[in-house]
């Protein structure tokens, strides 16, 4: 009965199916999307969001580079390379090419894109604070901004990402250029965000963080003790421990091998930890991580500054102040003077 009725033509059927032309009404909607896609790349390039990446790309085109420092916002705030240049009397520039949230994989990506000889290369290292994050799962937006800034993902970086469980990176790498552009649309909301941030956070020197090649420290206003305590409570467990992730080890092995191959002097600076964080921390875990780093790279290649700054020399829970940065930079300069084969002079 049911089957019969299925194939029976409706006698008084008003069923219509010829209204497709009404769908043309939606054309501007899709045109809006298409236009936005076309605008993604050029808008990205002129927006302030790409500023830091563009700055790094241009820095790598310089004629004479004495050295570079790589790392995250702790290195941005904590290393003033003008101090290094002055103390070492370098005749080429020593740039701080760190950026906010820069992962080890991103540092390697920048290193792989060095197309001019550099005699010294330093990496600011901070150990992990949670046990489960033993992987590099680079968010797509991090890589898309590098993609649009002109970095080339080398096969070496790809293989390294595979070894260090960079799942997002691998899926991103396999995408077409068009798909990567689509994934980069995040920058627009980031630009809106930036606009508001400039208005609401006058304490941040965002321009410096975008364009300064020597000391791109965006954090300038020291937080109150109360706020720092809140940040420590939020960002660290009640008894923080330090973890040297397998992925970090893999990246450092690559860092060592590549630099030994090219004959650059490489070094790793273990960045200072706020004594307030250390108050309840598992000190043995930090010592163990430092020892493992030295075992991996060699004693001479590691500068351990983990316990060198007092709490007053931190802006907040982890970023050094200007004075703190000068202190760190002087220590790096002293280290380079006594350990670099060039004895602190230009290696070129």
């Amino acid at each position: 009965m049911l089957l019969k009725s299925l194939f029976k033509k409706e006698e008084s059927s008003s069923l219509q199916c010829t209204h497709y032309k009404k769908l043309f009404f939606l054309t501007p909607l899709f045109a809006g999307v298409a236009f936005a896609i076309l605008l993604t790349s050029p808008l990205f390039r002129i927006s302030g969001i790409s500023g830091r990446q563009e700055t790094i790309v241009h820095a790598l085109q310089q004629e004479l580079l004495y050295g570079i420092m790589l790392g995250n916002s702790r290195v941005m705030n904590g290393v003033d390379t003008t101090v290094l240049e002055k103390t070492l009397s370098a005749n080429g520039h020593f740039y701080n090419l760190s950026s906010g949230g820069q992962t080890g994989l991103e540092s390697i990506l920048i290193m792989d894109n060095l197309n001019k000889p550099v005699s010294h290369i330093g990496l600011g290292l901070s150990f992990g604070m949670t046990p489960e994050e033993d992987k590099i799962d680079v968010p797509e937006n991090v890589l898309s901004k590098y993609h649009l800034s002109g970095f080339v993902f080398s096969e070496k970086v790809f293989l390294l990402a595979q070894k260090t469980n960079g799942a997002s990176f691998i899926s991103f790498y396999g995408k077409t250029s068009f798909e990567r552009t689509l994934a980069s649309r995040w920058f627009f909301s980031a630009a809106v965000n930036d606009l508001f941030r400039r208005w609401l956070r006058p304490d941040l020197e965002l321009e410096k963080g975008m364009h300064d090649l020597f000391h791109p420290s965006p954090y300038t206003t020291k937080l109150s003790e109360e706020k720092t305590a809140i940040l420590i409570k939020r960002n660290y467990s009640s008894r923080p421990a330090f973890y040297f992730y397998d992925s970090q080890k893999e990246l450092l092995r690559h860092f060592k091998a590549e630099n030994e191959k090219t004959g650059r002097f490489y070094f790793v600076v273990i960045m200072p930890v706020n004594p307030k964080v250390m108050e309840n921390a598992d000190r043995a875990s930090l010592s163990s991580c430092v020892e493992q780093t030295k075992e991996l790279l060699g004693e001479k290649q590691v500068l351990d500054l983990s316990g060198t700054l007092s709490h007053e020399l931190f802006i907040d829970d982890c970023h050094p102040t200007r004075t703190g940065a000068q202190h760190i930079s002087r220590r790096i300069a002293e280290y380079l003077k006594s350990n670099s084969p060039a004895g602190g002079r230009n290696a070129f």
Partner: protein
Amino acid sequence: MLFNSLTFFVFFAILVFILSHLNTNPSRKLILLFASCIFYMWWNPALIILIIISTVIDFVLGKKIQSTPSSRKIYLIASMVSNLGLLGLFKYGNFFQENLIFIMGFFGQQPSWTHLNIILPVGISFYTFQTMSYTIDVYRGNLKATSSVLDFTLFVSFFPQLVAGPIVRAADFLPQLDEPKDLSFKKEHFLIILRGLFKKVIIADNLGRFVDLVFQNPETYSSTIIIFAVLCFSVQIYCDFSGYSEMAIGLARILGYELRANFDRPYFSTTPSEFWRKWHISLSGWLRDYLYISLGGSKNGTFMTYRNLMLTMLLGGLWHGASWNFVLWGFLHGAVLVIYRPISKRVDFERLSRPLTLLATLFFQVFILLTWIAFRLVDFGQMALVYQKVLLFDFNFNFASIGLGTLSFFTTFFIFMLFWVLHILSRYHKDLCQLVLERGPLFQGAALFIAGFILYFFWPAGETPFIYFQF
């Protein structure tokens, strides 16, 4: 399969294409049923069994209720027991078990059974309420039992409203299946879908990133930020759910069917009864008609009326999720309904002057905001802390603790303001879809072009399920 996914877009396009080539009503209904099954099975194919069980039981019992008047009460009870049994087992099984273990632990007992981890089938609260309303309506004589299995199955499983409502009444939907329905490509339907999509992906999902960030560790944020997060959550949940409902209504209209509106700008309500006439209309209507009235409504004196209101809201709260915070949320709404009832008899809120209406609205909406805290936070410790921060304001207006690396906050502010501008415009000037439809093609084209532009740039990466899927 989410409405805001490419998979659904392809699924719907194929469905429309197939339907447009079928000339008979039964064949179209059969294809719609088949599509509804695919839509549901996309999450978990095995759980379609529950819909089939619920459908078969209520179809058979509906016919029995009608054909055997002497035993109709027994059949109705059988329908209630089976539907509530399914709901109780799958939705409240884990909750009951956890509470039992807690009580046993209180008396020093350790249970020896293995902890059951029962899956919560998507949409179970919605389709069981639909099938229950059918048998109750047949029992009350408000509806004739249908003799078509196809129609009844499609009523239960019609995919636009299957997993998150609106809860459709058989009396509204079954008659629509009797007549052949034309596919309808009116501009209005697409604009409703677009508005729903905009609410979900642009407003709700973007605000959700900030709300989640704050409510993960509320103890570390100041009162200002917590209050802003609560305000954002109120907008997020409204846009998430009303966005889904609007997409469901628009999709159903394209297929030729009409679903009732589920929201009517509830944040402009001045009283709790008005709020519940405008928020999740299909659920509040269901609770009124099948629970509140069944309990006696307001017929048996003041005390019984208050008891019925409270019971209805407590169960309504529990409907939202198997957790005590939802019971508390229901209790708060029940309490305010009880408090407002005698006041509403003396004060005609609908005839207040404009300033007084504004004042009454603000006063009531502050209460609604406070209830959203109970809705959002499952952990009572965190909930108490958030209430403390909201009620004992710390006068800390510094946003610095949100940090440099947090990308969501400032965009959140922009999107929050955008919502309120559009919402106020639609309330006091004209509905946004109407506004676009009444203008010329140039304005319409420009509006759609801008909508496409915004959708592309502000559509967050990854798919975020609708909040009401968990209910």
